[in-house]
């Protein structure tokens, strides 16, 4: 048994310690907002927070999450009103939407670190997240918008 705290809720799962956190979240805890895209930390669709840091859950063994706080897209805000979520809706960012959980989780860490990120900051923080629909321009706008909502941007 491995004990995990996901979105402030404790879970005990029976999983091999080497199982990637992604599959524990998706197939055992049924938190399917976190997506599988590549399985080798190339695309960022599986991004979650581990003690507040963005990690690729597809290559993170579940054992590494033991005793730590895991936050997934489902737990980013209690009611879907994180400034990034609101900005994403306002800028019509999602297309197919599959990568957007990971995009938002990466952006959330960026905004926490830099309240008013520059385009270069955004490039740096977001270049690990692939969007096949090519929504990058709108993601950039939405991050700036969320920064403004937070009062971060001047």
């Amino acid at each position, binding site marked *: 048994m491995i004990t995990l705290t996901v979105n402030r809720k404790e879970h005990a799962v029976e999983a091999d310690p080497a199982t990637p956190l992604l599959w524990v979240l998706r197939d055992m805890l049924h938190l399917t907002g976190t997506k599988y895209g590549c399985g080798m930390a190339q695309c960022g669709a599986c991004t979650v927070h581990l003690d507040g840091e963005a990690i690729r859950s597809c290559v993170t063994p579940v054992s590494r999450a033991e005793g730590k706080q895991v936050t997934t897209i489902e737990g980013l805000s209690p009611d879907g009103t994180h400034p990034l979520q609101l900005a994403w809706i306002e800028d019509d960012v999602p297309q*197919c939407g599959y990568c957007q959980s990971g995009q938002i989780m990466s952006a959330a860490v960026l905004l926490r670190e830099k309240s008013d990120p520059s385009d270069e900051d955004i490039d740096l923080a977001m270049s690990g997240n692939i969007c096949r629909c090519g929504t990058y321009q709108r993601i950039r706008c939405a991050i700036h918008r969320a920064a403004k909502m937070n009062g971060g941007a001047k």
Partner: protein
Amino acid sequence: MSTPLSIGRRGFLKTGALLTGGLVIGFTVPLAKRVQAQGEPGKLPSPNAFLRIGADGSILVLLAHVEMGQGIWTTLPMLIAEELDADWSKVKAEHAPAAPTYFHTAFGIQITGGSTTTHSEFDRYRQVGAMARALLVEAAAKKFGVKPEDCKTENGQVISGSNKASYGELAEAAAKLPKPEKVTLKDPKDWKLIGKGKKRLDSPEKVNGTAKFGIDVQLPDMLTAVVARPPGFGGKVKSFDATAAKAVPGVREVVQVPSGVAVLADHFWAAKLGREALKIDWDPGPNAGLDSKKLRQEFRKLAGTDGATAVKAGDVVKELENGAKTIDAEYFLPYLAHSPMEPLNCTVRITPEKCEIWAGTQLQTVDQGHAARITGMKPEQVDIHTTFLGGGFGRRATATSDFISEAVEVAKASGKTVKVVWTREDDVRGGYYRPAFLHHAKIALDEDGHPKAWKHVLVGQSIAAGTPFEPMMIKDGVDATSVEGVSDSPYMKDVPNHRVDLHSPKTGVPVLWWRSVGHSHTAFVMESLIDELAHAAGKDPVEYRRMLLKDHPRHLAALNLAAEKAEWDKPPKEGVSRGVAVHESFGSFVAQVAEVSVSKEGELKVHRVVCAIDCGLAVNPDGVKAQMESGIIFALTAVKYGQITFEDGKVKQRNFHDYPILRMHEAPLIEAHIVQSTEKMGGAGECGVPPLAPAVGNAIFAATGKRVRELPLRPDELKHA
């Protein structure tokens, strides 16, 4: 371990309940037949199939087409809501089930493709809204004791003088009225939504993790499977040993299916580990020698011979010999994978009564046929629950229903409810690629710089050959999707002596439509060649196109708007070079100006792309712009990185590290503009792709003097002083 009755299952059950009419009250118009043929002239659609109005005023729109990013989840409901005068805040959308009622109005099967959704549904969905409105008005008139003509509708209410009733209150009474014989649609000047646009209805669930894709499906007692497929196309299992696979904790079963060996487990990870533990002896099959270099040589050899002629005029052989200037050029584009972000997957549950399928699919009718064949059931016993598609780009519409057929086979062989999930490697190596194409063009210019003779030979696999689409798509040996954009090019038509020939070699590589289909290679070749001709004629690329396209007003409108917005008449910024292209596809006309720089080391940077589209009426303008942005990034990925190659019968690429996708820091600024147009409506989803590669290639020529005749770019060859 935990209960499988997750959020996902509830979401899908809701669909089932709706289809049997169990959840929503009101608005069930009695029909002679529940399933009625669509697309017959003069016959109105069944509102019941497309729209449900709840007693609470909720408006549910059922979508005959699927949402894969292109925005129809919002655009189709807009069409109904416009005519209905609905309260937009109460409008929701859901994918329709698989049934003849939802057949494409032009294609006669249930399909999402060809950038056709909005224009093919423009009348049907508006008619549904107008019919529902008429019934609600009639019900209200009775209730108020007034004539229907004395009622107006507004924001989900019928109003007559001081009387007001909400659609929710009226739904039950309206449902009992006979369906109107005919309806009058709004005058375009009265449109409140069409042409103005709405925010996407699917965003809220796509930003909080609740949107359900096929891969998110959870059913009771469901197992997850991964399939070991042959290392090369056409390979077969000779024998296999599953002892070690079955010893992996969580693995429940191993079964052989026509496509390989499936490992079924409690969850994906166990299934994947189980697959790795399989020992399989493969018969490599007929394509063991498949090799990209050899293929290219064969293509080149074929290009030197006559093929099936798509179009011809005049005497091309004679006139090629007496031009003022001539161009002789070979272009080559590789095989490409679609790589949707959501790897392919499909969930199947077979019971004695029916076969249920949960999947993100673009081609339900064909899927039903294959599932019926495999299970021995009738197509109507195959229920398809279409989820959101995590990207399609054509990959989720194969004539073989490959990823769905396989899952049905796994469910049948194992007797289990099963979700088959492809890994990214399975997807990259799984075939169904955009076919590689080699073009060879010989063009002669007259004294004024007009092309007077043009011989064009294309070599590349047919997408339709050997599929049920063959009779529709192949005429006289020419697959229309192989030559579209060349044989019907406005330039070609105006060249007095021309001939377009096609060779469609069989290679053993499964090929498929890839966002913009034939235009994905033909636009690159044609618009690069036009740039070569402009250069040879000593003319400005935009001016030269204006000269050749003088009788093609929609091309011109797009070209002129893009040139104006990009300030083509002024010199580009220091260090930046520009290229232009304009191309018609799927009924729309798109021009793009790319602004690039190329480093001395040959590295390309695309700074900005200015895009203009004439798609006729843009129902949801921001949605059209989003599709231009999307198409441009999709195309730029192919320009910089896209290629699938073969060696020793195997696909060389595996995952995003060697089949890269464009990333945030490489994405140019994109400015999309829409030509104000009342011309015939065209598409949007694919039309932004074709002009990008030639616009970028032409800009590279402007920057370096090096002509790009092959993709993806090879920075080594773009090095310059």
